[in-house]
C-alpha cells in the first residue's frame, strides 16, 4: 500500500476518527503504526491545545476604518501611518498635476484642472509591492469596486472595454471607479496566477498642441506623455490604436476621449499587443469615430 495513503489513513484516524475497519486491527499488531498514531495524537493535541491568543480589540475597528476610509490618507495598515510615504505620494500627485499644467497649459488650452491619475505613485507602489501596491494606489485614488455596467454609468465619457478574460489567460478580478476631478476614471485588475495586469482608462486632459507645436492625440497628455515608462520590472504603456500619434486633426484615428493605460510586467512584444487590442476594443468609440 502506498506510504502516503497509509499516513493519510492514520492521519484521518487520529484527526477525524475515520476507520475503514482496517486501522484498529492493524494497530493491534503493528508497533510502528501505533507509534505513528501516538505521534500524530501528540502533534494534534500540542497544536490544538496551544494557548489561544486573544484577538486584539482594535482589529475590527481598524478594519472598519479601512473599509470606511477615504483612502487619500494613504494608510495601508491601520495602525501604521507612514508620514514620509504619504507626503511623498501627495507630493508626487501635486507635482505630476503641476507638470501637466505647466507642460500643456497655455491659458487657451483645455487642460482639465483636476487631479490626474498619479502614475508615478502607481509605478512606485507596484514596483515595491506588486498587487498590494496596486491596492494602495487604488485607495489613494479613492477607488471603489463597481461592476462593469456601473463603471459605464459613472464614467460615461470614458471609452473602455473590460472583458472577463484577456488573452494569455488573465482573468478579470475587479473593476473600479476612480474620482477624476468632476468625472471618473475606470480601472480593471486582471490576474494570471501571480501576474498582474491593470488597465486604467481616464478622461483625456488636454486638446492643446504639444510643445513642438504638433497636434497630438488628446490621450498623449499628462505626465506619462503617450509612451512607455518603466520602474523596475514594471511598465506603464499608454494604449491607443495609434501609439505616439502625430496625426493631423482631420486624419486622427485615435480615441480623443480616453487615455488607455496598461500597467504590467509583461514582455511587450510577446503578450501586450493582444491585451492592448482586447481592452481598446470599444464599439462605441468606433461608431463615434466614423460619424
Amino acid at each position, binding site marked *: 500500500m502506498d*506510504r502516503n495513503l497509509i499516513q493519510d489513513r492514520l492521519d484521518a484516524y487520529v*484527526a477525524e476518527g475515520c476507520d475503514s475497519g482496517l486501522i484498529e486491527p492493524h494497530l493491534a499488531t503493528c508497533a510502528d503504526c501505533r507509534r505513528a498514531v501516538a505521534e500524530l495524537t501528540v*502533534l494534534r493535541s*500540542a497544536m490544538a491545545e*496551544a494557548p489561544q491568543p486573544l484577538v486584539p480589540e482594535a482589529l475590527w475597528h481598524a*478594519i472598519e476604518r479601512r*473599509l470606511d476610509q477615504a483612502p487619500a490618507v494613504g494608510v495601508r495598515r491601520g495602525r501604521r501611518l507612514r508620514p514620509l510615504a504619504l507626503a511623498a505620494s501627495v507630493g508626487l500627485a501635486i507635482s505630476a498635476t503641476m507638470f501637466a499644467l505647466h507642460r500643456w497649459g497655455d491659458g487657451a488650452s483645455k487642460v482639465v484642472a483636476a487631479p490626474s491619475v498619479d502614475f508615478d505613485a502607481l509605478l512606485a507602489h507596484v514596483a515595491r509591492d506588486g498587487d*498590494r501596491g496596486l491596492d494602495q494606489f487604488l485607495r489613494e485614488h479613492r477607488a471603489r469596486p463597481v461592476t462593469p455596467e456601473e463603471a459605464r454609468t459613472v464614467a460615461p465619457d470614458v471609452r473602455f472595454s473590460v472583458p472577463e478574460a484577456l488573452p494569455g489567460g488573465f482573468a478579470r478580478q475587479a473593476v473600479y471607479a476612480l474620482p477624476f476631478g468632476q468625472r471618473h476614471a475606470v480601472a480593471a485588475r486582471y490576474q494570471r496566477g501571480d501576474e498582474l495586469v491593470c488597465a486604467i482608462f481616464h478622461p483625456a486632459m488636454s486638446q492643446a498642441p504639444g510643445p513642438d507645436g504638433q497636434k497630438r492625440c488628446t490621450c498623449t497628455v499628462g505626465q506619462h506623455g503617450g509612451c512607455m515608462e518603466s520602474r523596475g520590472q514594471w511598465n506603464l504603456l499608454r494604449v491607443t490604436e495609434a501609439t505616439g500619434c502625430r496625426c493631423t486633426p482631420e486624419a486622427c484615428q485615435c480615441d480623443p476621449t480616453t487615455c488607455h493605460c496598461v500597467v504590467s510586467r509583461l514582455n511587450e512584444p510577446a503578450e501586450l499587443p493582444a491585451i492592448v487590442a482586447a481592452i481598446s476594443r470599444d464599439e462605441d468609440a468606433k461608431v463615434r469615430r466614423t460619424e
Partner: protein
Amino acid sequence: MTEEEKLVQRCRSQDREAQHEVYRRTSQRIYRLLLRMTGDADAAFDLAQETYVRAFTRIGQFDGKSALATWLYRIAVNEALQHLRRAGRAASRLTDDPARREAASPDTVATRLDVQAALARLTAIDRAMLLLRYQDGLDYAAIAEAVGCRPGTVASRLNRARGRLRELLADYDPEESVRPSHPIEAGRME
C-alpha cells in the same frame, strides 16, 4: 439558500453588520493562524486587517465552491507567505513567537513547548500546512484550497512537513533522533 450564502450576499452589498458577523465567526482562527505563521503580533494584526479588507472588498470573487472560512484562510495564508517572503524570513527561524513565550510558563506541557518551538523553525508553507490540519482541523480539500495546491498532493506534503517537524523535535530528544524503519517504507501494511 444557506445561512452562509445569505451572509455572503449581504456582504456583497457591503452590509457592515454582515461583515462584522463574518469577522466574529472567523477572526479567532484567522488571527491565530497568522500569529503562529509569523510569530509577530504586530504583523499578525496587520495581516489580519489586510485579509478582511481584501475579503470584503473582493467578496464578489467568492464563488461559494468552498466554505467562506476556507476562502478567508486562503487569503490569510497568501498574505502571510507574501509577508514572510518580503521579510526574507520564509525559511528562517522565528525567534519571537508569542505562542511560544506563552507556552513557556512553568506549568505548560513540555511536549507542547517542543512542538511550538519546532514548528517555528519550519518553512512557512510547511508551517501553514500543519497549522491548518492540526490546529484548525481543516480537511484535505480545504487545505488544498487554502494553500493553493492540488488536493492530491496534500497528503504527501503533510507527510513531508511532519517528517521535518519530527527531525526538528529529535533535536530536543536525542534518543529519538534515530527511528526504526517501518513496514510502510516497504509499501506493506499487515
